């Protein structure tokens, strides 16, 4: 296993300014969207249930910044961050959370199934590990069409105990497909900690079984995530095959909103919160790059305005008719 340490100040300073701003903007958008979704959910405005990615923003932002616009992602039940980072708009996402006709899925998918094929978002998925074989297939398609596209498949640590993980990664390795498997290791599969899921210290060790690179990075360091993902994505684009990228991070909330998460020691949560990926990056942008507090405040204000408009859009959007349920089964 290779462990990339947290990125150096020089590494950050070497990145283009517009990229740094993009990373920051994406993380802010995810943070604000998730905070608002939580608030609306607790106020009883959103049906269903909600899996929050608060605390994991750097993984989605770092990986998606390294993708091309026409690249694909597959996402998970905890997928708001991934799809925002891939370029989806807050208004249609929020409308989907409200179950409105203007949502990305016309209210048929909800929080767990947001998809926009025109943006390369092949769907968040309610079945743990189910996105991996689909990502493998999208990568096969890209290889066969010689399109130069790469796929990033997001999943959690829990997914790596599924048979679908093994089958999908092995097949991609055998066929040298252009796909990067991105494990957001947030240390818990619902309530089960890592040490009761596997006998190895890190998920990336599993890569050895498939003869592909396995890298572990600090998933709360967006620069480290971006650099590692970028290397593996470009490697895949060159035709050198798939890789497994483990990003170590932590979800601040329980598995779903309402899960008290009493299975986690409070000091553990406190430690991870002291490593808030957004605050760390904000501080570094001020200290290691030449960003001003005003610039960052502007980014935050713009994201906040977008969010406010999104909630307004979602609330004002029409609800589906009951019989709309009968449409969209068949092409």
């Amino acid at each position, binding site marked *: 296993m290779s462990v990339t340490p947290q990125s150096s100040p020089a590494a950050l300073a070497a990145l283009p300014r517009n990229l740094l701003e993009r990373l920051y903007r994406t993380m802010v958008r995810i943070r604000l969207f998730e905070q608002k979704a939580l608030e609306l959910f607790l106020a009883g405005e959103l049906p269903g249930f909600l899996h929050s990615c608060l605390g994991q923003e750097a993984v989605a932002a770092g990986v998606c910044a390294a993708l091309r616009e026409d690249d694909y992602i597959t996402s998970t039940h905890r997928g708001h961050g991934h799809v925002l980072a891939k370029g989806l708009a807050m208004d249609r996402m929020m409308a989907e959370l409200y179950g409105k006709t203007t949502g990305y899925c016309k209210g048929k998918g909800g929080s767990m199934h947001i*998809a926009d094929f025109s943006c390369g978002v092949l769907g968040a998925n309610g079945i743990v590990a189910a996105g991996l*074989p*689909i*990502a493998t*297939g*999208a990568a096969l398609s890209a290889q066969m069409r010689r399109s130069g596209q790469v796929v990033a498949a997001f999943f959690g640590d829990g997914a790596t105990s599924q048979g679908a993980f093994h*089958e999908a990664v092995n097949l991609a390795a055998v066929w040298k497909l252009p796909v990067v498997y991105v494990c957001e290791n947030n240390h818990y599969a619902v309530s089960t900690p890592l040490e009761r899921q596997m006998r190895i210290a890190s998920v990336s060790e599993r890569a050895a079984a498939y003869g592909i690179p396995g890298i572990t990075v600090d998933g709360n360091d967006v620069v480290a995530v971006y650099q590692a993902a970028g290397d593996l994505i470009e490697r895949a684009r060159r035709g050198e095959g798939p890789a497994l990228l483990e990003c170590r991070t932590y979800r601040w909330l329980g598995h779903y909103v309402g899960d008290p998460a009493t299975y986690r020691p409070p000091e553990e949560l406190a430690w991870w919160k002291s490593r808030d990926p957004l605050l760390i990056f904000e501080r570094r942008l001020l200290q290691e790059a030449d960003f001003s507090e005003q610039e960052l405040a502007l980014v935050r204000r713009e994201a906040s305005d977008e969010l406010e408009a999104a909630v307004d859009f979602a609330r004002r959007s029409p609800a589906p008719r009951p019989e709309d349920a009968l449409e*969209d089964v068949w092409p």
Partner: protein
Amino acid sequence: MSQIFYRQAVRDALREEMRRDERVFLLGLDIGRFGGTYKATQGLWEEFGDERVRDTPLSEAAIAGAAVGAALTGMRPVAEIMYMDFITIALDQIANQAAKLRYMSGGQARIPVVFRTQEGAGRSSAAQHAQSLEAWVAHIPGLKVALPATPYDVKGLLKTAIRDDAPVVFIEHKLLYGVKGEVPDEEYLIPFGHARVCRQGTDLTIVALSRMVWKALEAAEVLAAEGIQVEVIDPRTVVPLDLATILASVRKTGRLLITHEAYTGFGVGAEIASQVVEQAWQTLRKPPRRVCGRNVPIPFAPVMENYVIPQVSDLVEAAKELMR
């Protein structure tokens, strides 16, 4: 017209569609150099090569899932699940992904994927290589399900399946690969949802699936000798189901017998019987009758296997009871 085997008709359909559309490709276990366990893909690897006739590791979930992912992104894969019994391993990708991604995404996705597989008993393959599981997939909204019984039908329906933008579970029968039949030399397609009236009759309707079509036709011969005129209908696809043709026949005969190898309980036969009763109970002179697989796993010993799978004699006996 040519007389060809069912397995050749499968292969010809695949070959024609692969020549016609470069997005069509095959993936599955042992389908390439080996030519398929039942030799239905023999010769295709030689013509189309490794890229379009893809031998996979032994990974049903990855085979099905990779097909779904490729279909979502512009390809038209035909994935082979060697035995329908093995579909259990792939069922999440088929029933939760392929069947639902279009709906869950509000109609965005097109998923032109065909899952080719084969089912059926009669070779002493025992409980894990002989089941007929069409009811499992027919139950899930979003999947089309075809069960061709003849070389003519398997070719025409497979070509249609490959051109369909919805996921199709295409179920062949292992004991039909060696059946010969007439197939036109020129191209043809068979639309889904159009039953075939295999034999006309006025006394009794038998709706038969897959290999049971052949047994139903044999039974009809026997019954004809005794003065009972049987109409045999093969729905050919169960999703969509051509209920109109079945109803028209039942309105004529007033008697309905349904036969398939799949377990009787909660099977397609129950669905057909229920739909007929709902829509045409007044025209029925007798309650519908199912002659289907017994509700036990498929046993190994031929004498037991034959007992749990409907035979011609079972059909004849049930038909006579319905005529009493």
